[in-house]
């Protein structure tokens, strides 16, 4: 069993990330993008590439920094604290992990393009309002030596700007994962105006032609490649959500110390102290599940399902509690758009749904535990 202790390297990575993000991407950065109708900052992504973040899970031979899943979690956690807008999880975690399962010449070239920041990816998976990979109905119909993909995908996070799309579709005897240029003929992207002001699109596929070169892994067996990628993404998202919760919590405890009513800081009232203390306890317990998922993915990725779902379930519950309590303890100011807490609340709601909600992951935990 790997040690559940944050290493010195991880602490240094977190400190460095925090230092950079406080300058380059505080919450005001997200607010600025939203107010100007933007959902990406290409310069920020290039800087992340230059620091090795985009290659965090990519082998050094393909230009990556190969720091591993726990390190990816450290970065995601720091990004979550200030609600950083970037395709980090879609590209550097999900797509990179999928491509690593394949690791042929074409996949290695794709990995290199993620690592150097020239290509971003999005995962086109959901078709209904809930995450359900096994229920994928979009078809890839045999057409000569290739396929024609037809159907609609929704909640394609980072899909409005992504250069490439990972697409799961039903083939003759199972599910197949395709890696397509987002500009390919027949693909129509409809970026949606999301509550959290981030990039997510509905994507229509109308007889999109694909060949064997576009398939990641084996035909009819796309989940062998996608499952580890999803787990990596879920763990990183859980880490990001724990960062989100930590960010909301820090704002809230500071407010309890600063805000005065009845002539005293409101943090001197036991009713609020106990709400805040309970929230801290939840954060602390969730941190263990996050660290455990990263360690498990790094040491035994084939047996990480329980650890990952535990992390995503806990992070979802904790992030939602943190923002609900955050608004309540801030009082009226927490309801205003001028104040940042609303951004945290909306991102928590979106992240709760992405890659499987609480019930989805709690069910997986239960199945592992025999019920």
């Amino acid at each position, binding site marked *: 069993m790997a040690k559940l*202790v944050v290493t010195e390297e991880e602490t240094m990575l977190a400190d460095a990330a925090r230092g950079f993000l406080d300058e380059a991407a505080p919450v005001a950065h997200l607010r600025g993008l939203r107010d100007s109708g933007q959902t990406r900052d290409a310069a920020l992504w290039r800087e992340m590439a230059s620091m090795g973040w985009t290659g965090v899970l990519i082998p050094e031979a393909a230009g990556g920094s190969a720091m591993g899943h726990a390190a990816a979690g450290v970065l995601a956690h720091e990004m979550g604290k200030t609600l950083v807008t970037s395709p980090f999880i879609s590209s550097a975690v999900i797509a990179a992990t999928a491509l690593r399962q394949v690791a042929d010449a074409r996949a290695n070239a794709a990995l290199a393009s993620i690592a150097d920041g020239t290509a971003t990816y999005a995962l086109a998976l959901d078709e209904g309002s809930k995450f359900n990979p096994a229920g994928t109905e979009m078809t890839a119909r045999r057409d000569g030596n290739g396929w024609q993909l037809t159907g609609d995908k929704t909640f394609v996070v980072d899909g409005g700007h992504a250069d490439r799309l990972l697409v799961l579709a039903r083939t003759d005897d199972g599910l197949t994962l395709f890696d397509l240029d987002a500009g390919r003929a027949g693909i129509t992207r409809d970026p949606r105006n999301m509550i959290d002001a981030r990039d997510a699109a509905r994507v229509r596929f109308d007889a999109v032609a694909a060949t064997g070169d576009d398939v990641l892994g084996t035909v009819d067996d796309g989940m062998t490649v996608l499952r580890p990628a999803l787990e990596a993404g879920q763990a990183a998202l859980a880490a990001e959500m724990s960062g989100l919760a930590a960010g909301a919590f820090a704002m809230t405890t500071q407010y309890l110390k600063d805000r005065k009513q009845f002539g005293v800081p409101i943090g001197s009232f036991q009713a609020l102290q106990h709400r*805040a*203390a309970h929230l801290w306890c939840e954060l602390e*317990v969730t*941190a*263990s599940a996050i660290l455990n998922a990263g360690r498990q993915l790094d040491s035994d990725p084939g047996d990480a399902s329980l650890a990952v779902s535990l992390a995503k379930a806990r992070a979802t519950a904790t992030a939602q509690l943190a923002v609900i309590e955050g608004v309540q303890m801030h009082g009226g100011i927490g309801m205003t758009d001028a104040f940042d807490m609303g951004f945290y609340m909306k991102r928590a709601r979106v992240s709760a749904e992405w890659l499987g909600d609480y019930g989805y992951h709690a069910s997986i935990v239960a199945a592992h535990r025999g*019920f």
Partner: protein
Amino acid sequence: MPGGDIVQSHSELEQFRADLRAWLEANCPAEMRDGRRDETTICWGGKNWNFASPAQKAWLEACAGKGYTVPRWPVEYGGAGLTREEEKVFRAEMDRIGARSPLESFGIWMLGPALLHFGSNEQKLQYLPPIARGEIRWCQGYSEPGAGSDLASLQTRGEDMGDHWVVNGQKVWTSYADKADAIFALVRTDRDARKHLGISFLLIDMNTPGVSTRPIKLISGASPFCETFFDDVKVPKANIVGTENRGWDVAKYLLTHEREMISGGGGGLLGGRALGAVLADSGADVAGDVTLRAAAMTCEVDAMAIGLTLERYKDQAAAGTGAGDASAMLKYMGTELNKQRHELLMAAGGSDALEWDGPLGGRAADWLRTKANSIEGGTSEVMLSIVSRRVLGLPG
């Protein structure tokens, strides 16, 4: 627990595992491999202990011989001197064969860690090995009728008579005082000092003239707690742990261990089998009852995450990066969850769970017992106030 463990290679740990497996195979009686960890199967030890079976006795003696009742304690004090990594292997191998704990006691959970930290070498050599071998059973004399959450206001007093103290007063909620051989007690030895500063931590033989106990019948029908009375009880000066009038330091240190134990570290409220499996075994329709299933899933998610948190803090302690006031958090989260867990077990049991000795055995008594979890060792509200003050730095 000792910090600064040596780093062991994977092959060293695997050799340890192989040796341990062979030892367990040869020494753990079949009867002791049913994975049970409830009140009826615990071995508490002590001078008056009646072993439930020859197997229970053999298992305790085999483990005590290897130091496995207290695997992390140093060998000279009756332990096995295992590192944190070896201990993890030890727990995993014990769980793998469903081995019962050979011995549980307040000596192991509370007094032992306090003695290891504050005791003199003579005290360690005198008191720790009998705890490790299950020969002496200890109880805890902390709370008093007028000193519950405000523990430091305790009034049991010790009068300095030169080579001994004379102790008078009353303790309450002393678990198993009627079965214990000795008590570690907080006694006011300076009535003029501020309340935290006039307390000493004394070790008292329960057979000393003037010590008497009276069991308290609880809502569960059982009487695990007693009132304990001290009437001109002579306590030798050598029986103090730590410095005179600085017993509060020892008391607080011990409380952190007690809280970890209550939350799952020793007694294992959260240890053992998954909730859903326990429910299914007793006939509940976990798959079909959506309300029960949803609640059980949440309970299981939280139990696993709290269990990991306990492991994380132990790993941090072994790595020398202390956990601060984490025990308050663990105690609060663990006990509140355990109460929920037993509410679910009762709901799942339906009317079968309502008979004291019905088809589900002592489920109702266990459920009622858990209500004390968030009171004993510091209430949930006291835990939250500790977190608020010491971790969050909130005023007041």
